[in-house]
């Protein structure tokens, strides 16, 4: 077992499983094996050394795969979440032919996600990215409800637009670099156009603020295991893409500032929009937007100050891992919560929620501390950023409160919770607690120091205060949460506007009459008639010519004409 074989097995295993599912007979039952498709990735995590690198000259236009520390972190996240979700899906989905289809698309998306983590050249990265994006469409519209279709279309439209932007950006990168290996790409600072396109292309996936609209639509629409990977693993692909393609040091520093601003706006906006939602999964989606905003801001700082990059990047990896696991646990928990009693439901959802808000002793506290720590070492004053990052935790707690309220309330359909459901959820919930100790023990210890506890505790307190007063106010007025911001916020006016424009276009006949349409219709109708008339005229002429008198006249006339012409010619020649 060489790295050469192992690295390719990581993305290839799910694909091979999909192929095997196409087998007649046996293939119909192979969906049971879906969770096993992450095993090569997990095994690779264990024994592949850092810097494992492999080259496949026959694949695409020459493919490189590698496993570096960043990749290792993301690979852990990806494998863990997909594996957990796969197990969960076994118990979650009802029987029926659609189940095979779900698993097929699930595996395809999984392959893409795993592949982009280990990709070490841009073409393979793009390939995996596209595979993941498009296959995820199958997960979003799986339920075939109106809502799923709407979410699916928005998702797909944005994904395709993102792909295209990414494609163009990559082409620009590769053109400048003269090669498509990532190492080669890093050598050359990308030009502004490429940077812009990459930010947009990956930003769609990462839920960057103006491009986030698909998230709140897609997450509630997708089946729960799909939402878990969508929110936990797939949106991290955008972040990973930025890290890979716009590495600090190579990317322009101005980009860092932009990313910080966009990230912080996203963090705040996610909270602001999330609290007004009425569905638990939507709240989680907004929470993801908010959290991704934090990570984006972190990356922005790293890009703006390349000196801080190593520390920030490893912190971001931890943060991504933390968020992915916690968010996935929450999503899976929502699925369980619908089937059990209220207290049990809260029990499943409490710990990951708190972890997300940065509760000490959880992964959240560690991640936040690790992320903020390098900022104090920055050459310029970043206290505002730090402050905002901290404040975001308050927002997160607010969101979590809202989430708990919604998840605990609402209609429920009590059903037995099979082992397929609770086991992966349990693993993830435990993961939120155990993760820091396993991955960053020194950070975990550091987070237990009082000043750090305080640093993560005051925002939580603030959040609790605001949330509590909000609940109180609501109680006093007897009102409910105002529906200030609808699901999919920005998309809704866009949709209205778009529909209005479409209606207008449909009503306005100018657009439906082709330029020159009347002319072409005249030609289409008139030409054959004209042609027939012409033929008739010719036939009439033929009858005229057939008369002997005409023929004779023509004969004599031609003799004279030839003579005249000869004479003229002679005159011309002689003159």
């Amino acid at each position, binding site marked *: 077992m060489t790295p050469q074989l192992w690295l390719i097995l990581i993305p290839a295993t799910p694909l091979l499983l999909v192929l095997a599912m196409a087998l007649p007979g046996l293939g119909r039952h192979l969906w049971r094996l879906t969770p096993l498709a992450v095993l090569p990735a997990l095994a690779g995590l264990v024994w592949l050394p850092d810097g494992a690198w492999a080259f496949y000259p026959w694949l695409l236009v020459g493919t490189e795969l590698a496993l570096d520390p960043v990749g290792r972190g993301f690979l852990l996240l990806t494998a863990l979440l997909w594996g957990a979700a796969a197990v969960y899906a076994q118990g979650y989905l009802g029987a029926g032919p659609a189940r095979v289809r779900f698993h097929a698309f699930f595996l395809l998306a999984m392959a893409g996600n795993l592949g982009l983590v280990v990709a070490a050249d841009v073409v393979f990265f793009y390939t995996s990215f596209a595979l993941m994006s498009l296959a995820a469409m199958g997960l979003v519209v799986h339920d075939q409800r109106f809502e799923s279709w709407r979410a699916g279309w928005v998702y797909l439209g944005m994904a395709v637009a993102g792909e295209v932007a990414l494609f163009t950006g990559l082409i620009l990168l590769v053109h400048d670099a003269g090669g498509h290996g990532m190492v080669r790409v890093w050598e050359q600072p990308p030009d502004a156009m490429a940077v812009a396109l990459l930010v947009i292309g990956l930003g769609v996936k990462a839920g960057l603020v103006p491009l986030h609209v698909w998230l709140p639509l897609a997450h509630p629409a997708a089946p729960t295991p799909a939402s878990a990977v969508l929110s936990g693993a797939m949106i991290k692909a955008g972040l990973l893409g930025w890290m890979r393609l716009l590495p600090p040091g190579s990317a322009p520093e101005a980009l860092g500032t932009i990313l910080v601003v966009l990230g912080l706006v996203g963090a705040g906006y996610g909270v602001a929009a999330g609290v007004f939602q009425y569905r638990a999964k939507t709240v989680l989606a907004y929470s993801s937007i908010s959290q991704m905003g934090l990570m984006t801001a972190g990356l922005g700082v790293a890009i703006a100050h390349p000196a801080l990059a190593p520390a920030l990047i490893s912190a971001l990896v931890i943060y991504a891992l933390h968020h992915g696991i916690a968010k996935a646990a929450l999503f899976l928990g929502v699925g369980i919560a619908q089937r059990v009693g209220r207290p049990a439901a809260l029990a499943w959802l409490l710990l990951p929620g708190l972890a997300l808000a940065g509760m000490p002793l959880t992964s959240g506290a560690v991640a936040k501390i690790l992320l903020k720590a390098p900022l104090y070492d920055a050459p310029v004053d970043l206290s505002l950023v730090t402050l905002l990052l901290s404040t975001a935790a308050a927002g997160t707690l607010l969101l979590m409160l809202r989430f708990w309220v919604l998840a605990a309330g609402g209609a429920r359909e009590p059903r037995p919770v099979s082992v397929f459901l609770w086991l992966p959820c349990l693993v993830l919930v435990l993961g939120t607690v155990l993760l820091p100790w396993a991955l960053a023990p020194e950070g975990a210890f550091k987070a237990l120091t009082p000043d750090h506890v305080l640093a993560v505790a005051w925002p939580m307190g603030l959040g609790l205060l605001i949330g509590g007063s909000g609940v109180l106010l609501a109680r006093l007025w007897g009102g409910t949460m105002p529906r200030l911001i609808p699901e999919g916020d920005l998309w809704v006016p866009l949709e209205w506007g778009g529909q209005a424009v479409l209606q207008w276009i449909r009503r306005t006949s100018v657009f439906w009459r082709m330029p020159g349409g009347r002319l072409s219709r005249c030609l289409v109708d008139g030409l054959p008639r004209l042609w027939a008339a012409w033929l008739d005229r010719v036939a009439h002429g033929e009858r005229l010519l057939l008369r002997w008198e005409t023929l004779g006249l023509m004969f004599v006339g031609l003799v004279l004409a030839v003579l005249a012409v000869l004479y003229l010619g002679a005159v*011309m020649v002689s003159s």
Partner: protein
Amino acid sequence: MPWMDVMADMALAPWLVILPLAGALLAGLWPAAARWWGLLTGLLTLPMALLLALQVHAHGPMVLYLGGWVPPLGIALVADGLASLMLLMTAGVGLAISLYALGYLTGETGGRWFWILWLWLWAAMNALYLSGDVFNLYVTLELVVLASVALVALAGGAAPLVAAMRYLLVSLLGSMAYLMGVALLYGSYGVLDLQGLGAQVALSAAPMLAAALMTVGLMAKSALFPLHVWLPPAHGSAPAPVSAALSALVVKVSFYLMLRLWLTVFPALPLPGLDMLMGALAMGAVLWGGLMALRASRLKQVVAYSTVAQVGYLFLLFPFLRAFPDGWKAVVFFAVAHGVAKAAVFLAAGTLQRAAGHDRLADLGAVMRGRLKTSFALGIAGASLVGLPFTGGFIAKWLLVQTALEAGLWIWVLMVLGGGLLAGAYVFRLLGPAFQPGPADPGQPLPAVMEWVPLALALLTIGLGFAGTPVLSLLTRTLTGGGG
């Protein structure tokens, strides 16, 4: 090659007259065996023509003084490249027509007269191609006219008779104009042989008038627009082998004569102006014939109008001649290609007509599907008419376009290409019924030869597609020019 030298000593040219004439006489004497005489004649004439062409190609033009009397006193038989090419074409197509007629004309009385007249026609055409004397040419021309008029009338019935009558009158009119020209030429120069005349003709009124009369007379005989009206009824209503012979060969005869005159006798006359007039008429012919072919509703009518259209190309001769002295070769190649293709088309049409019992284009589908070989012949020969590749027609079109372009005569390039499009339209219109849905039905039982001969001719058009170089090099062995 030694045998070529032996051949060179033999005077082959007269045999090409003697053979068909003897065949005609024998057929007349013994009508019951006319068909076999005809077949024998065809089989003997073709190799003879081939040998003559090879001989001419190897040794250059051959002139034979009849009775040993040297022109201007006597008459010369001239076998040069042009003449031997036309003889070869006639022999090839003629043999095919003879074979076809074996199957087409069975039992009834018409058959015998066809054979007798057809052999006469063949002899007359051969005599005309070989003749080197303007008055002798007149006599052969009359022979051709009488034989072909009788062939047209052979079908019997009002329409063919009227067509034959009109054809005869037009031909006589043309002949008389030609004869007047001969008289004027003799009156001016006192000689009758082509070369001798060519040496003397200068730019003056009498030869100009003679040229006008002769040219227009021959134009009428070769059915150039607007003097073409006699052709479609005559060719369209005659029996299939007759139509083929008339359209493929007889039309070319008068064209050949005109070409000969302008190559040898009238080079001194000015072409500027005349080329425009003739070109305009040619264009008219291509358009008019094409449109009429698009409108005609009967198979043979379409083919006949196609001849009217294609004759137009022949008259590009004048613009080309004006542009350069070698310009006529393209036109001659076109004439040959058209001859073979048109014979194939007419014979195929005859087969279909006989099989279906009619030739209404719209109702021919079943028979066309049932008789694939014939439909193929129609298709391939039709492709040659359009000028699609691998056929003689393509090479001909290529040469025409090349010549026109070389001379910078854009308008004729457009005409050739546009005429090709019209031809495409009517040829594919001919083929269309085969593709309508419906059953395949071979129709009346027919002898196999009626299917194979058109196919063979169609394949010959493909062969012509590869014969460009030898034909052109044969044509360089042509006697031209004043006193040349």
